[in-house]
């Protein structure tokens, strides 16, 4: 009788029978609402006794959230309004998370940049009192570099071997026990690692304070991080690659060494760098095992050394302006060192990414 038609609810004939189009706010509206919220809260700030900047900022944000949702509900309908509401919340959370980060960077740079001169990098604190201008972090940089390097030399091979055991060989109870203890170690407070080395290495074995003692404590902190990140990366290597190796008559250990580890290497390097960055900023374990000094000691195996976190700690603890300035500058140097390490790790990881 009739031609075949798609049956469905009767729809008004018109240009938009299928309701594909919807009302949507022009792009300037959110900006206008934001401006309105800011203006209103500024008025409140000026005209009422409320005089806390934080409250005003929060009020502006809240005002924007409410006004935007209302406007959107009226014009665009419920679904889009909920979308805008969620979007606003997500952006606000992002901004809140970034504020402390930027605040830290800004304050460290503004307060620390003033002391960054050649003398600061080439001098120790030998003979410099808290009231004296001058002094530097040469001894602290040497200490940090040596201690972190030694800690990495101890922790990275060890952690990598543990990870390889867990992923490639570990079966049954032993691997579960190891895995459990790695988890426990991950949550170990850093000062406990320091106390352990203090009690065991410095006092019981009577080795005295030294950079190496600090490296031991830092290695204890690094190992679980290295194990976990390397383990995750090794697990990501497809089993097919291992089988391809075995099927060529390559023994398992060689397959691991030449196929599995190289494939996972970029990720492993990133994990190691994160572990290095973490321990480079540790203060408590270093304080207990290296002790700190104002003099240059480039031998990590005997006598007290300094390190950047220790230096910051001791300088910031003194009430004189020059000492506090030195602490800020040292903090800036520490951040820069860690950032450079991270950048190197990223470049390395990017260059070797699986194609």
């Amino acid at each position, binding site marked *: 009788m009739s031609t075949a038609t798609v049956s469905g609810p009767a729809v008004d004939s018109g240009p938009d029978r299928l309701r594909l189009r919807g009302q949507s706010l022009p792009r300037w509206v959110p900006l206008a609402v934001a401006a309105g919220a800011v203006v209103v809260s500024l008025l409140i700030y000026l005209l009422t006794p409320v005089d806390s900047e934080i409250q005003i900022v929060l009020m502006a944000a809240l005002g924007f959230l409410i006004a935007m949702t209302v406007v959107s509900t009226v014009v665009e309908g419920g679904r889009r309004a909920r979308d805008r509401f969620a979007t606003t919340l997500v952006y606000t959370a992002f901004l809140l998370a970034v504020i402390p980060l930027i605040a830290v960077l800004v304050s460290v740079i503004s307060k620390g940049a003033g002391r960054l001169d050649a003398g600061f990098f080439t001098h120790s604190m030998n003979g410099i009192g808290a009231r004296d201008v001058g002094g530097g972090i040469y001894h602290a940089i040497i200490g940090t570099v040596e201690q972190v390097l030694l800690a990495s030399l101890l922790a990275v091979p060890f952690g990598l071997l543990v990870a390889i055991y867990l992923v490639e060989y570990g079966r049954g109870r032993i691997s579960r026990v190891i895995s459990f203890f790695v988890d426990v170690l991950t949550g170990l407070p850093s000062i406990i690692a320091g106390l352990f080395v203090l009690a065991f290495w410095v006092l019981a074995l009577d080795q005295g304070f030294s950079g190496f003692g600090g490296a031991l404590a830092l290695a204890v902190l690094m190992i679980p991080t290295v194990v976990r990140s390397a383990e995750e990366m090794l697990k990501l290597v497809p089993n097919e690659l291992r089988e391809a190796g075995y099927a*060529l008559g390559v023994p398992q250990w060689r397959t691991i060494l030449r196929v599995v580890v190289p494939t996972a290497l970029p990720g492993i390097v990133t994990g190691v760098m994160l572990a290095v960055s973490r321990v480079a900023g540790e203060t408590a374990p270093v304080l207990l095992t290296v002790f700190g000094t104002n003099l240059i000691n480039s031998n990590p195996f005997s006598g007290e050394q300094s390190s950047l976190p220790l230096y910051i700690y001791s300088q910031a603890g003194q009430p004189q302006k020059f000492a506090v300035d030195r602490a800020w500058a040292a903090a800036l140097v520490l951040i820069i060192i860690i950032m450079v390490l991270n950048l190197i790790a990223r470049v390395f990881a990017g260059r070797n990414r699986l194609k």
Partner: protein
Amino acid sequence: MATRIDVTGLTAYYGKFKAVADVNLSIEPKNVTAFIGPSGCGKSTVLRTLNRMHEVLPGARVEGKVLLDGEDLYGAGTDPVNVRRTVGMVFQRPNPFPTMSIYENVIAGLKLNGVRKKALLDERVEESLRGANLWEEVKDRLGRPGAGLSGGQQQRLCIARAIAVEPQVLLMDEPCSALDPISTLAIEDLITKLKSSFTIVIVTHNMQQASRVSDATAFFSLEKTGDPGRLVEFDKTSKIFSNPTEKRTEDYVSGRFG
């Protein structure tokens, strides 16, 4: 070169699960033998027992005998690593080593086993890539990553890698199932060519492929899920596809089941 394989009373387990039971077959040298059958019937498992790759999975074990020219692969003192050097394997998905170039991929088996002589390696790369019909396509970019090739080229690279260690037998586990028809044709041509120097065993889901490339065909099946797979019929390919003895084989190859 090229070796015969005799399988007797082979039963393979994954942990407690019996995957295939009581398989007996004889694979002729310099022949292509195809394993066909529905999913889960254990054809890949049987294939993997032929170079001791089955036991790579945790809990997997094998009973019975696999004789390679009379030597038992599962006999005391047999080293699985040596077995795999003699019986090479190509997998379902092309799996070139992602950190290695085309050149390094081909000689991976040799290099990882300690061959260092540059002249020998160069020669073997060209020989193997020519053997895998890939030389003309990649000879100008041997230093490029192997993973940058197309799927079909990668699979031929994997075949080149497998034949570079000069095995006697080549096992192929659905080598074309991830490839387009043109690449499949290239691999099938290659199989026909390789037959003159290797004993080839190929698992395939594609019955036309089995009838095109193989000399003998083994049909595996299973009663129902959970039962072990069994070898139903093993005969010349022409007989399996035209006049099989078993009703079940006929149903399967004619498309009435599976």
